[in-house]
């Protein structure tokens, strides 16, 4: 009997054996393509000069409103400026402002959600009502109101977009926090002598952040779209800035040169679709 006890038998049940549970790391081709698009966009914003030798602000008025060609990939605008160069140079401001917007939504919304989900009680009630108010106003309208009061700049448009995204982040972060907080391992941590802060930052946060992060990625796409819309309406920087939304807006006055609208619009659509595809892939990977 004693010999039987000292040799410890480690039995594995097949249903939970390691191989089956481990995620299969096959990246679908569309996701790879999306990453490629985003890498190009990122490089455009970091080093626009590398991708185009032509100026985005001065053009040859003799060569105005030319259709896309080998010399001018996206054609030229009414001042003869190369549209491709303008798109590339406008990337930095469009992408940065989207990132600023998402950062605001993620940080502020995430903290609100984490606090109300973890502390509950009156904190939850109070923050919950604030979020309700934010949710009650249509997001785009809220952004317009905020940017009107802050002044017409791209950065203000980004801040406004970020504020209008807070509510969604807060709700999701709260739900995820509640779920993680109720887990047995959080109680086990208390029994192991852990404090509330320890449970929050070491157990709850690592288990709750995944889907919030997926929402953040998804939100980059939405933010690009919202900021472009605001720029289109004239709430962003004024020309000769070349934000993507602004390019679409100024292009629409020349119906004879449709590429002025289509080229920047296609860039916007491709970027947003790529971000969405990656977000969906992240969320799926997180679930399995």
């Amino acid at each position: 009997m004693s010999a039987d006890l000292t040799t410890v038998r480690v039995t594995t049940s097949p249903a939970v054996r390691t191989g089956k549970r481990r995620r299969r790391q096959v990246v679908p081709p569309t996701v790879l393509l999306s990453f490629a698009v985003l890498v190009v966009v990122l490089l455009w914003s970091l080093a626009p000069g590398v991708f185009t030798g032509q100026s985005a602000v001065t053009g040859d008025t003799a060569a105005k409103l030319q259709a896309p060609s080998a010399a001018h990939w996206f054609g030229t605008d009414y001042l003869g400026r190369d549209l491709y160069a303008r798109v590339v140079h406008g990337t930095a401001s469009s992408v940065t402002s989207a990132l600023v917007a998402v950062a605001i939504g993620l940080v502020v919304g995430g903290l609100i959600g984490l606090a109300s989900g973890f502390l509950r009680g009156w904190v939850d009630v109070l923050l919950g009502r604030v979020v309700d108010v934010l949710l009650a106003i249509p997001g785009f309208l809220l952004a317009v109101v905020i940017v009107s009061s802050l002044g017409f700049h791209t950065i203000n448009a980004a801040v406004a977009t970020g504020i209008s995204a807070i509510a969604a982040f807060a709700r999701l972060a709260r739900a995820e926090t509640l779920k993680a907080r109720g887990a047995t391992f959080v109680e086990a941590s208390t029994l192991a002598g852990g404090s509330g802060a320890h449970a929050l930052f070491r157990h709850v946060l690592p288990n709750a952040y995944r889907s919030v992060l997926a929402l953040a990625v998804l939100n980059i796409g939405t933010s690009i779209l919202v900021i472009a819309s605001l720029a289109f309406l004239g709430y962003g920087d004024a020309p000769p800035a070349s934000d993507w939304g602004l390019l679409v807006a100024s292009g629409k006055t020349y119906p004879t040169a449709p590429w002025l609208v289509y080229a920047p619009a296609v860039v916007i659509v491709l970027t947003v679709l790529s971000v969405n595809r990656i977000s969906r892939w992240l969320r799926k990977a997180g679930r399995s």
Partner: protein
Amino acid sequence: MTVLEERITTDTLLTVRGLTVAYGGTEVVHGVDFTVGRGRTVAVIGESGSGKSTIAKAVLGLLPAGSTVSGSADFAGDDLVTLPDQRFRTLRGRRIGFIPQDPATALNPVRTIGSQALEAAALTDAPTTEARRAAVLAVFERVGLTDPERVWRSYPHELSGGMLQRVLIGLTVLPEPDLVVADEPTSALDVTIQKRILDLLQQLRAERGISLLFITHDLAVAAERADDLVVLRDGVVEEQGPAAEVFRAPQSEYARLLRADVPALSPDRYRSGDVDRTDAGPDHPAHISVSGVARHYGQGDRTVRAVDGVSFDVRAGTTHALVGESGSGKTTTVRMLLGLERPDAGVIAVDGAEVHGRSKAELRRVRRQLQLVYQNPFTSLDPTWQVRRIVGEPLDRFRIGTRASRAAAVREALESVGLDERYMRRRPTDLSGGQRQRVAIARALVLRPEVVVLDEPTSALDVTVQAGIIGLLTRLQRELGLTYLFVSHDLALVRQVADTVTVLRHGRVVESGAVEQVFHDPQHEYTRTLLDAVPAAS
């Protein structure tokens, strides 16, 4: 043996030959053969992942899309494997009945039992709704539902698990099927209810000449109830034959192992027998003392007395078991002992120090001596943490020793539960259920506590895994002189491991004393019922 019995035993109803099932590319059942005789009970036993439920689904024609089946399953002339769905529909329910595992999820919660019963009764030959209703009420009465009219009007949430399972059994036997497939029909139920449900199934089988294909993980239940056993492991039949024979002299290594690991079948496995640790004399003080503890929920008329005046003592170095069915208050008692809940009345003391009514810092100090192993190792370990960090968490939190000494303590704790260096950097998702529970035990032991509370530590695990964990716990107790408070509903297991026992029911102590005494000479009716419910091989 009479002529009639002879005919029954030789007449086969279901013949399964070379049944192979694959999900996607993974084959889970590899060429299984067995037969079910008319009027016989055949138990398919196996642990999780053995393919037993897949076999049940194959027989019922309920395999999910994307699974591939080969082999044959001859059911009174029809091959169930190749039978088109159109033809299968006339068999299912009418001639092959099914009793599911969890009765609570098998019925639609927003419709009354009666309206759902009428759907099932449509399979009978009864011509009118009235006749169907009468048939349903009659069968409800037969399965032991005392007030069939009330059951008819009820919604599923208004009935207990045992009553729901009776409803489902009644509806299954209503169209007089030849074969009933029961997939773990009692594993979601309490032990005393389990016994009654199994008795009922046996009666109905005898009465109506039904054959029963009984899927279970519980060898003791199978041994008690079945005529024939099919022992399954990893989709392969390890052994089959008449239950009594497989039981008395198992041929395969695996069946022998299973028999040794089932607590009900080898009650004295962990008894050392040499020392009686309970009789330590009056000068030996109690290590844990719980006296008159009560906890109520709600107010006024709706007060639920979860725990109502529970007292017991545990001596150092012994194992005390808290036994009871769901709702008996055993978990609440344990949570109060650990300071996770506050009692409304009574005192709990560990080593002479009261757990409640003290400051947070003092509670923390008590908890150092008092660790818990949870029931479900799949939820009690943070999936984002590595094993070494999980085990080291108590040390880090109580700031014990240096970084190096903590790492050494973690390694030692893991070693003592039989996990080597390789497991240090794994995450819980990469471990099996048994390995996870070992990690949880290592976490509880790393502080070198005096008392470890074990809250049904093996009920989520397979029986062979359970045997490994129980063996480990007994060894650790011997080596480290631990005091265990062992919470369980499994009396056979309690008998194996505990020195003293307290039987709880509805929050009150029913009986208390040394295990030998309580098990051999139970004083209370309820204890006797519980003991009767422990399956015993006939």
